[in-house]
């Protein structure tokens, strides 16, 4: 009886929502992404996932009586260009901005959003950060209208340590090699911070130039001399690939604990060297409770979700859930209300619940730890290798304390 009452209620609600409002204001989403230049392949994946998510919202009836509109803006991989496109997006009336492919650009956009909102009360814009993992985005630069829907270095390292310790692959001697910029430094700090909990000793730490090194042999010689059990690295792109290959060539038997091993092309390029190495990320198809999401995504886009696509699509699904609690009756959309609703939403992803921490707008989310194995269920890069789930570290275990530097000003209500 209760169910029937509920259904009638929902149906009535749906009818009201479907009734065309004459001057309904559509919700506008802008993707400011690296769609040309060296980061295009990653930028494209973020854009595809966001568009998939928007399609899902629109299939369910859109928002505010209108389909949600989505526009792509090409930031060409540069922060000044992103600032430019932000202004273009504001001119187009965009309410929510999505971006992921660079912390530098995320830093630019969050500042642009903050200043825009100070100067344009009542016409706020919100920024959903899908991939900028720099700690300061939820530290020094934290602000109410920025939400980070991805992990950070401590979350990935915590999860790796927890899972590898359980499976007995961690060992007691850990080597840390990272790229010398904010992300690599964050990783290095996180590896050090987890030492006591993980029961290991950091025997050496290296920071090297970003994507400039062609020959990692000297670094591998150093690693060999230190004889660690596990090498932690936040490296991505060529820096990860060449490091792994050099290690393989030197016949060194260590386990790599990585953050970006699932970047498209890595597994195919590394070949058998990649087997047995670990990765911690937001989502992996093999870790999903059911096949529903990967299959639905493939149906819509032609491929299984890879790399950053999964968690980006979930961010949109969470937004959809938050929008479901709001009703502007076809009138003016309040971004502040959407942000407040998003703060109170917990979305059940196929790997566990994701919620927003109100103090710094970091999402509290599960982290998937996987290992490269042969004959995987979801092969990577058309090889027979793929990721095998080792452990899904629950959200509350992976999260780290709010950074002291975050002083968030909340909107007056």
């Amino acid at each position: 009886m209760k169910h029937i009452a509920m259904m009638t209620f929902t149906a009535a609600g749906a009818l009201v929502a479907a009734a065309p409002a004459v001057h309904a204001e559509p919700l506008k989403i802008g993707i400011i992404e690296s769609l040309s230049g060296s980061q295009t392949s990653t930028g494209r994946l973020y854009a595809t996932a966001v568009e998939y998510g928007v399609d899902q919202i629109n299939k369910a009836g859109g928002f505010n009586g209108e389909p949600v509109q989505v526009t792509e803006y090409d930031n060409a991989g540069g922060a000044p260009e992103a600032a430019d496109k932000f202004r273009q997006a504001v001119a187009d009336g965009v309410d929510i901005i999505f971006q992921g492919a660079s912390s530098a650009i995320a830093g630019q956009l969050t500042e642009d959003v903050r200043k825009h909102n100070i100067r344009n009360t009542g016409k706020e814009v919100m920024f959903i950060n899908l991939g900028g993992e720099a700690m300061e985005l939820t530290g020094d630069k934290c602000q109410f209208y920025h939400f980070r829907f991805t992990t950070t270095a401590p979350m990935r390292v915590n999860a790796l340590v927890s899972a590898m310790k359980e499976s007995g692959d961690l060992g007691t001697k850990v080597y840390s090699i990272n790229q010398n910029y904010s992300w690599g430094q964050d990783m290095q700090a996180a590896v050090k911070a987890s030492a006591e909990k993980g029961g290991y000793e950091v025997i050496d730490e290296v920071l090297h130039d970003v994507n400039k090194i062609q020959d990692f042999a000297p670094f591998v010689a150093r690693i060999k001399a230190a004889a660690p059990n596990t090498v932690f690295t936040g490296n991505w792109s060529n820096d990860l690939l060449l490091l792994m290959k050099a290690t393989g060539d030197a016949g060194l038997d260590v386990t790599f604990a990585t953050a970006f091993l699932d970047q498209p092309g890595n597994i195919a390029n590394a070949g058998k060297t990649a087997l047995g190495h670990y990765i911690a990320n937001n989502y992996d198809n093999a870790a999903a409770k059911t096949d529903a999401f990967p299959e639905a995504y493939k149906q819509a886009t032609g491929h299984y979700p890879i790399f950053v696509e999964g968690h980006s699509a979930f961010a949109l699904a969470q937004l959809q859930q938050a929008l479901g609690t709001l009703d502007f009756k076809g009138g003016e959309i309040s971004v502040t209300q959407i942000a407040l609703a998003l703060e109170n939403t917990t979305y059940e992803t196929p790997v566990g619940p994701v919620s927003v921490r109100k103090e710094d707008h970091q999402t509290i989310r599960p982290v998937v730890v996987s290992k490269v194995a042969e004959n995987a269920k979801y092969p990577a890069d058309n090889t027979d290798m793929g990721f095998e789930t080792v452990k899904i570290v629950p959200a509350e275990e992976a999260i780290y304390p709010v950074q002291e530097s975050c002083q968030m000003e909340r909107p007056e209500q």
Partner: protein
Amino acid sequence: MRNISILVAILALAIAVPPFLGIAWQNALVNVLIASLFALAFNLLIGQAGLLSFGHAAYFGIGAFAALHLMIAIEDGLAFPTPLVPLAGAAAGLLVGIVAGYFATMRSGVYFALVTLAIAELFHSLAPHLQGLFGGESGVSSMRMPWQGIIFGSLIEVYYLTLGWVLTCGLALWAYTRTPFGRLTLALRDNEQRVQFLGYNAHAAKVIVFAVSAMASGVAGALLAISNETANYSLFATDVSAQVVLQTFVGGSTVFFGPVFGAAAFTLFAFLVSDLTRSWVFYQGLIFVLVMLYAPTGIGGVIAYHARHRRQLDWSRLAGPYALALVGGLLVAAGVVYLTETVAVLFGEGYAVRMRDAGGSLPRYDLFGVSWDPAGILTWLLPLILIGAGGAVLVRARRSIAGFWNRMGRTEALAAATPEPAGGTA
């Protein structure tokens, strides 16, 4: 007199029109102005002194960071008028320019270009490590503070501030080229040895012109910082240096104000096209190649050439072939755009999905509001016809235009093809 009236008309437009434009256009115009000043500063080296710098991003970036640090100080209570913030960029650009210029100008030609490239790369790799100075990956950020009742919150205020600075600096650079010392830099370009034999210190002269160019680049960087209110180390990247080279050459480095045309063309092209098609960078490269092949003196060079011969030009006989060339060019462009976009669609992700849904056959696709059949003859014949017809028209038009100019005097045409003193024709 005529030149002055044209300038006044442009200035009047630049002042009167922007308030009526949307903020997207205002923003685009701010970018055009900043790019123009940067290109003018860059051209002081290549156009005047014959020094090709591949690392001007260094001075542009330094100017931006200096301005941001001054803005932060103003935010913290320093009594400094916001409109004068670009002075910080000028000072920093000048200082770094003197030091970098001292080393770079010890050599000329390829060696000079390589040293400038290395200096910019030095900044690019050093900046992420100097957290305090350059703010690491997420950069330095500040806010424009109000001054004398001007809030600098809206873009139009930023536009007028930028316009004022760009005009002042542009005219100052032009005036500099007219001074005896500016003339000396021209001599340096043409024959450095002779300048030395005349008793001048060639190295010191080159350092000065380098520093002046770096100073104006610093002002341009500072204007960008004021407009964006943030900067990070990506300002030092090679593509910033490369962009100004492309803009200057497309605009025309032999004419003083030529680079402005290139800067305006590239900036507006990016503004108008970058969100329409993913292939915009390809088109941009194509335009550069075509200009270099068929109008090596750039847009400014072509305009200056016509302006110089305006008294002899018989437009009644020239207008026809020019219109014909325009039609031919548009036809070829339409064909190329059609082909590029078709390839982009057919090899895109969306089409792969639809191909799979259609069971491997080739489904129809929409482009330019028309539905096309990928296996249809018309789909592929149309671009070929467009390019073929356009090409034929172009060849014809080119022949009659060349004939016209030949009749005007072959010697003059030759003279225009070789570089001549910049500034003389602006």
